[in-house]
């Protein structure tokens, strides 16, 4: 036991001595949470809009004012020629063009033939922007029609009124979507990369030779290496949760204990992955690139962190099943944000348990008691 503690102490010293790395390990989650929470958003805001019109009449001015009024759109240019709008698109000076027909005012009561041209390089944004601007235009024209002396004598027509209810994330904050993902990413980064690199570093500098011939069981050496990173992960987990609750206002809607339990399980999976990488590589660079490329890229891209899994083609969906982060992010999203009871996610949790058992099994089997 004393030996084990000596090992753990040594590992902590290694980490604490490297100020820059520890600063990054602790600072990275904070920066990521703040960036994802505040900066990364897809809300429609300040869309640079061009209005193309030939007839600067009162109605046109009214419509322009209405578009410009909200925080969604900013009319940056009013031009006469659609080609001018295209030129602005090419310079990134416009995102959206509203083409009003000639003699717009005369069209109050009839179909006007308005055209909306959107820069669709980003398809989702284009869809959302056109929908928004369409709504603004429709209500503006409704107002215009009302101001007519003779209201259109159309027969009263029944229409559907939508009462929308936004579940779980009524303010549509992107933080709700990203917090679980950032948790999955950070824990994987720290547990897997740090563990593998720190073990391989001992191989590279030759200290592994000394540790192997010492009377301690080699597995104990490895377990002691894992302890500090485990602690660090808990620290990060706490930081992320505190930040998301108090800074981002993302509450823990579900059972906190269940959330912590699943997180510990995920940390275990990540640590054993790191352990596995360390047994398969011999140099720090190889370990870093292996964990950086083979682990991090799928964790970012195919885990549902940013891109929803159900939009992917089926081979990738199938592949995503072997990525631990996919399951973890899904569980956290539902436990923490949606607040469902644990019983609803036990299957996903079981997958993580199976992964942990499998990975630990392989890593122990692959672990070498000798140098070659």
């Amino acid at each position: 036991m004393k030996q084990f503690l000596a090992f753990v102490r040594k590992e902590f010293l290694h980490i604490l001595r490297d100020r820059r790395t520890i600063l990054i390990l602790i600072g990275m989650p904070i920066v990521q949470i703040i960036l994802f929470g505040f900066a990364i958003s897809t809300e429609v805001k300040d869309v640079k809009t061009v209005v193309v019109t030939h007839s600067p009449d009162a109605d046109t001015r009214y419509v322009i004012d209405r578009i410009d009024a909200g925080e969604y759109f900013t009319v940056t240019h009013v031009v006469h020629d659609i080609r001018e709008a295209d030129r602005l698109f090419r310079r990134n000076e416009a995102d959206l063009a509203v083409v009003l027909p000639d003699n717009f005012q005369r069209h109050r009561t009839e179909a006007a033939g308005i055209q909306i041209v959107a820069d669709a390089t980003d398809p989702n944004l284009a869809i959302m922007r056109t929908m928004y601007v369409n709504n603004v235009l429709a209500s503006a024209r409704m107002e215009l029609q009302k101001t007519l002396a003779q209201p259109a004598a159309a027969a009263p027509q029944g229409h559907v009124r939508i009462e929308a209810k936004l579940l779980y994330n009524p303010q549509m904050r992107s933080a709700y979507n990203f917090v679980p993902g950032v948790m999955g990413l950070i824990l994987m980064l720290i547990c897997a990369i740090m563990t593998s690199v720190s073990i391989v570093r001992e191989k590279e500098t030759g200290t592994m030779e000394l540790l192997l011939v010492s009377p301690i069981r080699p597995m104990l050496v490895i377990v002691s290496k894992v302890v500090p990173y485990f602690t660090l992960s808990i620290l990060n987990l706490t930081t992320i949760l505190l930040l998301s609750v108090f800074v981002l206002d993302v509450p823990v809607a579900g059972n906190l204990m269940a959330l912590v339990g699943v997180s510990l399980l995920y940390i275990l999976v990540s640590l054993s992955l790191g352990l596995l990488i360390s047994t398969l590589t011999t140099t720090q660079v190889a370990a870093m690139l292996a964990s950086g490329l083979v682990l991090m890229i799928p964790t970012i891209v195919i885990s549902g962190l940013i891109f929803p899994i159900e939009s992917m083609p089926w081979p990738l969906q199938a592949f995503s099943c072997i990525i631990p982060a996919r399951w973890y992010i899904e569980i956290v999203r539902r436990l923490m944000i949606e607040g469902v009871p644990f019983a609803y996610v036990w299957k996903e949790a079981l997958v993580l348990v199976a992964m942990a058992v499998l990975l630990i099994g392989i890593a122990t089997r692959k672990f070498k008691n000798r140098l070659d």
Partner: protein
Amino acid sequence: MTLRYLIEKEFRQIMRNSFLPRLIFIFPCFIMLIVPWAATLEIEDLRIAVIDNDRSPKSRRLTHRIENSAYFQLTRLPDSYDDGLDAIERDRADILLEIPRGFEKHLVKGEEAPVLVAVNTVNGTKGMIGSSYLSQILTPQGEDVSIRYRFNPHLDYKVFMVPALMTMLLVMLCGFLPALNIVSEKEIGTIEQINVTPVSRFTFILGKLLPYWLMGFIVLNICIGIARFAYGLWPVGNLLTIYLSTMIFTLVVSGLGLIISNYSATMQQAMFVMWFFILIFILLSGLFTPISSMPQWAQYITYINPLRYFMEITRMVYLKGSGIADILPQLGVMSGFAATAYTLAILSYCKQQ
């Protein structure tokens, strides 16, 4: 011409490395061929549950319209709102439509007929687009407004991602490899032997930079090839404009990598610091989310993010066909960055203690 020997040496080392040449070829192929399929925010096949309390011809017709729409997939017809909510919690539906009793009656009378739409908005984009689609089906309006999607008429998400992924690859490869380079010479000890030679700091750093510059060029061409043959994407604008801006951009990131390398004592440190920067670069570049949606403070930060400018250029030239005159501001800023990065890389490299 000392430079020539230094560059020769770097190339030999890169080629002799068992890992790097493969990385330079395989990594771009992997990213370009797989990620565009995964990195899609295309919203389709939203799972909808309809609670039809009216069970009238009109409500059934509405349900049919939803079922036939391209966007929705009718997964179940629960009996009550609570059942529907349960379906969402169990992750079997994304959106819920409740048609109350008396729906048809209201409509026939020419009154407002309220319906309840509940959307899972954990993923805000998905929820928002889903509810908008649904409201279009429920309350068709603005039929006389025609919509034209410029530059990407089929709203293909891959068109949006592919040029962006090229820039991401260039940042990663041309950023990480130089960051590890000088610090690895420090760890091995060969830097000492170089420091005691008369080679100037200017030449030494240039000798480190140029190989990565060329590597960036190779990576770019692989990417352009894959974009053409796998996705049928070819720059609408001039290819040479892309080459020119890539040349400037790789100088910026490789320079940054070398600066980090100079200040780091171990490879691990260099790696983590670079990670940190690249992450911020990518998140604040407009790659995934538009810069205009960011809060003001974040928008200010993007002004010092070289990737922001390069991302803009690539998408502008690739998709919109912008000419060199259109991208002059971005090119100017990037050239400024390149000069600064190179100068700092030289200044931060000390031959003497």
